[in-house]
């Protein structure tokens, strides 16, 4: 572990510092949006959005390596794909028909399929592993600036709409009766989820996004009575698991996304166990 801290301070390997900074930057967005995703029970919507971002990443790489167009970085390609799929998912889930599930599955797999095709058309060898399972150690300073901007927008919007999002998440019918534009709020929340997914994809990759989005909030949920404490707890847990996940992967030479996800699962299991023991003790003392 000491070698990890030494490496962090070593200017010859800046990527490790970038990785930790990226995790710290993104953690509040993970915690806040993750809390909304968990209390609204929409993790499968987030799953669909995350898999569709491969289309944007693939498009960006195809444009770059086949046509020499470099305007669209993989980060912003992922962002555009996430926003488009968030809008489609919002539209489909609003209709609430039998076909909602099918539309979401289509977004899920179509985005991934298009992405794989684009990658296949890209000349040279592109390793999709980094995008599927993440490699936080590949982040550039430009990516960090993009993450910082996105993080600020997500946090600002989530704070601005906090009372409305809370009311809609608790009872959207009542919010609608009170004249709230609940369709707009729900769509906005899904767009924010899409933006958060893009931050997550840089960190843990497409396949592992759901873990880092939902497990910190689910773990904090065992001990939170309010949405605010849930968000704070989830953000701290996201920060902790990202940091220790990176350290773990550095020390044992593991893929960083996998290290982070294993830490998140460990924290969730621990929280569940502690909660379970607490409940048992309480019951006994009441008996």
């Amino acid at each position, binding site marked *: 572990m000491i070698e990890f801290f030494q490496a962090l301070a070593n200017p010859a390997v800046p990527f490790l510092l970038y990785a930790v900074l990226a995790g710290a930057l993104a953690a509040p967005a993970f915690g806040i949006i993750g809390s909304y995703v968990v209390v609204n029970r929409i993790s499968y919507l987030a799953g669909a959005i995350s898999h569709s971002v491969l289309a944007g990443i693939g498009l960006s790489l195809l444009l770059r390596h086949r046509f020499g167009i470099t305007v669209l970085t993989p980060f912003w390609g992922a962002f555009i794909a996430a926003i488009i799929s968030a809008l489609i998912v919002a539209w489909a889930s609003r209709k609430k028909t039998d076909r909602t599930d099918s539309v979401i599955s289509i977004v899920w797999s179509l985005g991934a399929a298009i992405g794989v095709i684009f990658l296949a058309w890209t000349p040279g060898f592109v390793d999709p592993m980094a995008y599927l399972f993440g490699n936080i150690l590949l982040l550039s300073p430009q990516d960090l600036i993009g993450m910082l901007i996105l993080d600020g927008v997500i946090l600002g919007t989530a704070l601005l709409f906090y009372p409305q999002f809370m009311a809609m998440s608790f009872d959207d019918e009542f919010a609608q009766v009170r*004249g709230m534009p609940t369709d707009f709020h729900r769509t906005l929340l899904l767009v924010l989820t899409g933006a958060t997914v893009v931050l997550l994809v840089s960190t843990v990759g497409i396949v592992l996004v759901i873990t880092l989005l939902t497990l910190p909030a689910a773990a904090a949920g065992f001990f939170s*009575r309010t949405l605010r404490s849930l968000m704070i707890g989830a953000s701290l847990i996201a920060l902790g698991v990202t940091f220790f996940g990176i350290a773990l992967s550095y020390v044992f030479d593991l893929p960083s996304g996998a290290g982070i996800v294993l830490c998140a699962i460990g924290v969730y299991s621990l929280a569940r166990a502690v909660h379970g023991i607490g409940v048992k003790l309480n019951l006994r003392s009441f008996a």
Partner: protein
Amino acid sequence: MEKAPITDNHPTTLELKNLSFSYPGVPVFQDINLNVQLQGLSQVVGPNGGGKSTLAKLMLGLNDPQVGKVQVLGCEPARAAGSGLIGYVPQHTLFDPHFPIRVVDVVLSGRLKRAWGPYSKEDRRIVQETLEDLGLQNLAERGFSALSGGQRQRVLVARALVGQPKILLLDEPTANIDFESARNLEAYIRTLKDRISVILITHDFDFLTSSVDRVICVNRNIHLHESGQLDADGLRRLFSGHFHALGEAGCQHD
């Protein structure tokens, strides 16, 4: 589209004009006409599936009729509800029991006006007063999910009242709560009905029989009984007699 200003002296009326409503493939109401003054306490009764909740959703603007129109307080339902003139109390059992939210935050949501931004100081003051009025001030910081059914129902009543409505619409408020809480809630509603119009949807026929001003019977059709047209005996017959059969036989109107 008419945009009459909503003022204090708006008539507390519910008006249905040639109203037809159906869910996809399931007709509920056909060509209904009704014009009712809602002062005091109105009780909506009828069998499950007869359209009680559908009528409530039409009044709140959550459902739009395919034909005809609904007017509450002389204007469109969504507009009346959106300005806080109709307070809505749904059943407490509809909520996610694990949702992390404090009582005060639930009640504050009854003050939602703008599509973004925080609550005002006035919002918080009114919420505080209403919580005290309902004897909930000690529960304000508690988690909603930690409350008993009766307490939750009171919180939902508080949430509806902070919008300062002229009509309070309660959907089965005493269902699934214990006997004593139910009686306390009834007593509180009795104190309200002199200030605002109360509409109570229920299948509990004992509820408030002595103080009800009118009964609206809903079973694919809508019939109005003003209690002035019925003596005490008639009212009792209405409840004990032909409504007892509602569950099985449906409303026995001609």
